[in-house]
């Protein structure tokens, strides 16, 4: 019967308010810790990554094989199809394999982006100079936003002002972002006077944004 603390009952309103403050205080702390350390992203990149698809990369070169380097680290030889890669933006280098004259060809270097749950496709042709080399790189990103049921297409290029045609319809010049495209497979034609055009099929899905970056082959003036 030894009471250590003689407690006086708190006013019920104050008690309720204290409980509410405590409750939301716990929530605030959890939210802060969760967001401050970006735990969701950390987990998705470490723990969950082993159970889900990570970034993938497919590289193909025309007229011969090429060694593929990602941030100066050799990852294989074309045709190359890799998965379970870390997402991010990297510098991709293609070095043409040539037994006769290895220095003849230009090393084609350009940035590529790899994203989770998606494959980045690259097709390239390596010429003796930068101008006589071309590539096209594309990857799709999933969109979750409510209003983005339709597909989006973003095109960037070297050089600038390349004419974009989708199924024969003029869609402007690069750089361009096209919104509200219906899903389906389209014929994409990229052309500019003085350059070799590129024609390729492109598949668009709802709730995705497809990013296409390409470089055109400059036709030598004396041809």
């Amino acid at each position, binding site marked *: 019967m030894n009471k250590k603390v003689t407690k006086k009952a708190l006013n019920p309103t104050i008690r309720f308010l204290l409980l509410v403050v405590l409750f939301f205080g716990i929530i605030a702390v959890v939210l*802060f810790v969760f*967001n401050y350390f970006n735990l*969701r992203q950390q987990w998705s990149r470490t723990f969950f990554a082993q159970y889900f698809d990570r970034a993938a990369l497919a590289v193909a070169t025309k007229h011969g094989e090429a060694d593929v380097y990602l941030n100066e680290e050799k990852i294989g030889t074309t045709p190359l199809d890799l998965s379970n890669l870390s997402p991010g933006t990297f510098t991709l280098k293609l070095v043409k394999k040539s037994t006769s004259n290895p220095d003849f060809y230009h090393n084609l270097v350009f940035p590529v982006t790899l994203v989770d749950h998606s494959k980045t496709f690259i097709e390239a042709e390596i010429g003796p100079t930068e101008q006589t080399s071309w590539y096209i790189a594309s990857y799709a990103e999933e969109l979750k936003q409510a209003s983005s049921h339709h597909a989006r297409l973003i095109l960037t290029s070297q050089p600038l002002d390349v004419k974009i045609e989708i199924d024969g319809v003029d869609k402007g010049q690069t750089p361009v*972002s096209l919104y509200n495209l219906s899903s389906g497979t389209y014929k994409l034609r990229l052309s500019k006077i003085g350059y070799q055009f590129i024609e390729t099929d492109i598949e668009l899905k709802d709730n995705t944004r497809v990013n296409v970056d390409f470089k055109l082959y400059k036709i030598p003036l004396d041809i």
Partner: protein
Amino acid sequence: MKLQTFSKTTKPLTVLVNGINIVGLKLAEILLDQGSRVLIVDEFTRKNKKFVLELSKNEDFMFIDMAASEDLYKNLKRLDYVYFFTEQLVLRQLPLTNKEVLFYSNIFSAFLNLAVEFEAKFMLVSTLAYRQLRQKAKTNIQFLQYTENITREYRQRVKNNSRIVRLGEVYGKGMDMSYPTELRRLLTEVVNEQQIVIYGEGFLANALIHKLDAVYGLLKAMFTNATIGKTYILKDKTDTTSLNLAYSLLELTAEPKEVVFREEEELEGGEDLLDSDVVELSEIGWSQKIDLEKGLKRTLEYLYKISKKKWVDPTTTIEALPKDRRDVSLSSKDKGSKVVDMPSNIYQNVFWQFLYGVYTNLIIRPFQVVYKSVKYFKVPSLKQLLKGALSIGVILILLAVFIWLLNPFFQIGLNLYRIGQIPARIKTDITALDSQTLTTDLEKMALYNNEVKEGIDQLNWLVSLLPQDSPLYQATLQLTEVSTILSQSLLDLDRAISPYLDYLKAFSLDVEVNNPVGHGSLNYYQQIQAMESNKSSVSKAYQKALLAQDQLVKIDKTVFPNSVQTKLTELNQYLSSYITLLEEFEEVKGFVPFLLGSNQRVEYLFMFQNADELRSTGGWFTNYAVVGLENGVVRELTVDDVYNVEGQVGSMAAPLDMQQALGISKYSFSQSNWDPNMYITGKRAKTFLNKMGKAQNAQVIIAINTKVLEGLLDIFGPVKTEYGDVDSTNFQDLVVQLHKDFEPGSTNKTDLVSEIMQKLMTRIITTDSHDLQTWVKVFEILNTQLARKNIMVVSQRKSLNSWLNEKGWDSVFTDSKDFIFVVDWNAGGNKVNQVVNRSVTVNNNVADQGTNMNLTIKYLNQASSNNYPYGAYKSYVRIYLPTSYKIIKVANFDSNYSVRTSKTDYQEIGGWLTVPISSSRTLELGLRSPTILSSESFDPMYLEYKLNYIKQSGLENEALRVVFDLDQVELKQSQDFILSQDKIEKIYMIESDQKVKLPLRKKIN
């Protein structure tokens, strides 16, 4: 005095039973002061004797020994108030014996009866302090319960005027320290011991009251009728835990003490007083007047005094005490005690108190609870288990739901805030040339941006609740799209810019002027190769920025609050600046690695000219320098005098136009800037140097007028030389003097220019990248002087040259179809052109088939002396015009003039002109331009008049007047024109190439 006499009085009579205690004595004192008679009934002990004797000096006071109280019942004549104190009976260490209980019960009953008999007011002064005893005597508490019960019973039965007041433990000056309460124990330890013991966590709550507050309360309770029949509690507003009490006491003593925590012993309990129908005395208006600190201070002062020790008030003197005296460490040497080391001044520092609280409550307490739970474990019933699990489940579900609901808002807010912090960090990273941190920051920005985007994604459910798509939501989505694309752009830019930052950070000068042997340890190959490799990232960054801006302007900003709208407008402006920056970068990215000697040596040929003696590309050619770079490393830094080249190479066959103009067949190195086209001039200078085996790889040729070096001297301060401090004011004079003193083989002038150049370069290179002010000044000077043509650059590399031409930095003047370029070559051997003003007037007559132009070039020689450096101005003047211009009239040259047409795109009219001192001469040309004015301008109603007037390097303060006849044209009023009776004109001060563009229309009569 006998009791009978004493009580036969007109004064109110108050009896204080067991009244010799701290409260009773003070109460007696007050009542006596108020004119009452006071009778104390208590035991006459040695301890009490001194109080009795002291009070007995007052004739209204009387003491009766409790043992002789029978006399009281018989002889008492008056009784108004009875206070029956119980504290000393309850708190005493020894339990009351049965005999004592009987004795005190009889006394108590007797006074209850007396009060009824005399209709006196009765108060049982009960106590709460028994709860604070470490050793409780059960019978004492039972006696206390008995007195309370009897008082209530009397009230019910006879409706007497009685009340019960339960006092907290009374403390203050005069308190009896023999009771074993927590307060008394702590007080004793503070005053007499070296350590203070805290039992358990020290959570025992102590109900306390200062004696003055107690007396005030008792008086108020007795004299307030509303108290009849009720039980009150009279104590401080809040109870104080033993731990806090200890801290409070420690704060009030300057002596260092150890605080010892001891395990709490299981104390014998006792029955408690009934708590029903008990109210605080504050209900009748009593309030605590003396706070604990104040009360304890007074008490300590008293206790120190009776212990014959000196008490120092630490609240006023603590800072003056030595540190060791202020320190308190918590530890224990006792068996079974916990040793706790605490920081010093713990009792003064709220923070440490808080930490200690966290320590005990969060770390120690749970263990104790678990320990006790195990010790007294009872298997809970299934119902209890389910109830507990349900409660925990509900709380967890609620927490999860709220976290899920609130997280997007929190995520968006926090990450937007973090994105807002990034730009400042980017600026710091760039000025610190820290590419790694820059990359990290930009990656963080992308990460935060992604978080914002995902936060908005998570709010889909909210939007789906709306009847239709919210414009605000749509605009927010668009904004995140802008942000996403922009952060991608920044990441691309980072890839491109990082090698530049790395190079600049690592760059140092390995060679000295005219001493090409460096350490050879520098290697920037990796950075230069990275610049090459990441060129395409610039293009991507640029295009993404364009897309971001395109998306930004499409956003309906009106859906946002005004503050956000303003921010978006600012963002658009920043984006425009960013795009401009990227455009520039896009233009130069292709040739910067080349300029740094990527994979091959590149050499720069600098031609230093003195504009005081005007020549075609700026001034008299005095010195040259060759800077050689290989993969970013400076391998050569040569500075030499033109005369040394002339001495070694001699002269070469002069170009035809030079032969015709100057009447010479050969020309020397110093005359290599004859042609105003820097490309030709550079080539000729290089030919001379190549003959000496120098500048073989000179891909870039730069003409610099001494004005640029003067500007740099202004920024970086004077340079110490053997001729003294050289600054912008004396540099030119010194060079002229050394030139006049030149003798074959002399290197004085070269040494001076070399030294200044080396020191300036060193200062530029060693300028801290954070010193933005200096860098801004340097770039301002370079930018201004490039525009003013005091620096001109040409290159043999096509892409670089076209960029230089676009910038107007190469002095190649044939890029427009309507241009005029007047070039003077001062051949008088003096520097009089410093005081010669040149002004050009173009009088236009607009016709259907073109424009007739009357071009006048007026020279005014303001020199008043023929002595060097002044005298007559003798110049070979060349006027360059498009080949399409028809020359109708040429007048006022000294003698014949020549007209020469280039193979491609210009014609040159050249001839001598001499302007004596204090006089003027005007050259006149009649020209016809075939250009038909067209409506290329912004306003189709207006046609556009275009003329590109080329500035001659080294010539300052030239004015250009463009004049039209008023009867022919109308001009837009908004233009800044001067109107005269029949003319309309506009004047330009030529500070760079002047592109004249005037919207006008032909007048319809």
